[in-house]
């Protein structure tokens, strides 16, 4: 874990230099450089939703109670990376599109996914007994939204760049992008494991209190 943290720290320290060295885009100019953190944030947002959905499936249908810890961890990360995506996107759009927000399929469905996971976190905090299963159902609906968000830019009219932009990037823009994707993936794995560990430890505290009551 320490090695992973050191590697992530080094990558995030190096990322600004690579981003600075990348050329400006012909029509958008300097502001397109938001892309190097916006796109990896968005991918981690969708990955977190998928992890929460898979763990919810394990909790609900395979009766694995510890899967709940992973749903909690992934749901919080979906809120974190969702907020990063939904804040950086409008900052980029203000300059490139002339508006902060448009109600197209990509932006609206991303906002809905974010709201589903905010609802999940609130439900787990204030929902009381049984909120784990109710929350898992909510997270499954969140995961179902992911493929729709991904392909939405290719099927509906929008200002948002399509998914085909990524494989066609010139090498001098592609290297910083894939470097940032790797750094964000590493960060995602570290945060997911840390947050799940918090839930494991909370379980342990409950067991210790129960053992104390029985003694």
């Amino acid at each position, binding site marked *: 874990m320490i090695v992973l943290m050191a590697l992530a720290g080094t990558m995030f320290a190096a990322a600004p230099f690579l981003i600075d060295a990348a050329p400006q885009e012909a029509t958008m100019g300097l502001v397109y450089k938001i892309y190097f953190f916006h796109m990896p944030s968005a991918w981690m947002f969708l990955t977190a939703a998928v992890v929460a959905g898979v763990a919810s499936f394990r909790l609900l249908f395979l009766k694995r109670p510890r899967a709940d810890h992973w749903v909690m961890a992934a749901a919080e990360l979906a809120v974190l990376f969702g907020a990063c995506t939904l804040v950086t996107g409008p900052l980029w759009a203000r300059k490139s599109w002339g508006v902060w927000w448009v109600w197209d399929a990509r932006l609206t469905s991303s906002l809905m996914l974010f709201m589903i996971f905010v609802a999940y976190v609130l439900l787990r905090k204030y929902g009381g007994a049984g909120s784990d299963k109710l929350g898992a159902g909510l997270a499954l609906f969140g995961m179902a939204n992911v493929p729709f968000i991904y392909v939405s830019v290719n099927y509906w009219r929008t200002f948002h760049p399509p998914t085909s932009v990524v494989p066609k990037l010139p090498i001098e823009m592609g290297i910083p992008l894939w470097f940032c994707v790797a750094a964000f993936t590493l960060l995602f794995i570290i945060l997911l494991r840390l947050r799940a560990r*918090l839930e494991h*430890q909370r379980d*342990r505290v409950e067991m*210790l209190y129960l053992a104390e009551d029985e003694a």
Partner: protein
Amino acid sequence: MRLLRMVIVLAALAAPSLALSAKEDQPQPPADFVPAENEPQEQIPAMPLLGAAYGFIWLGVFGYVWSVARRLRKVEAEIAALEARKR
């Protein structure tokens, strides 16, 4: 029921005039284009937007790491106290 029907009819009658008044409030498009005497300055500078985007992500990630570490420390201290009491 009769009152509800009356409200619906009145709302339907008022809708076109409300829509027209809303249209009047909207900014009007320019009547003609005027050539600029000097080269126009860039209206929206990119740097503050770029700084805000990166700043938000850094703050969000550091804030979250700090919050998880704090919660983890608290729970682990509780475990240590409970295990010490058990012995």
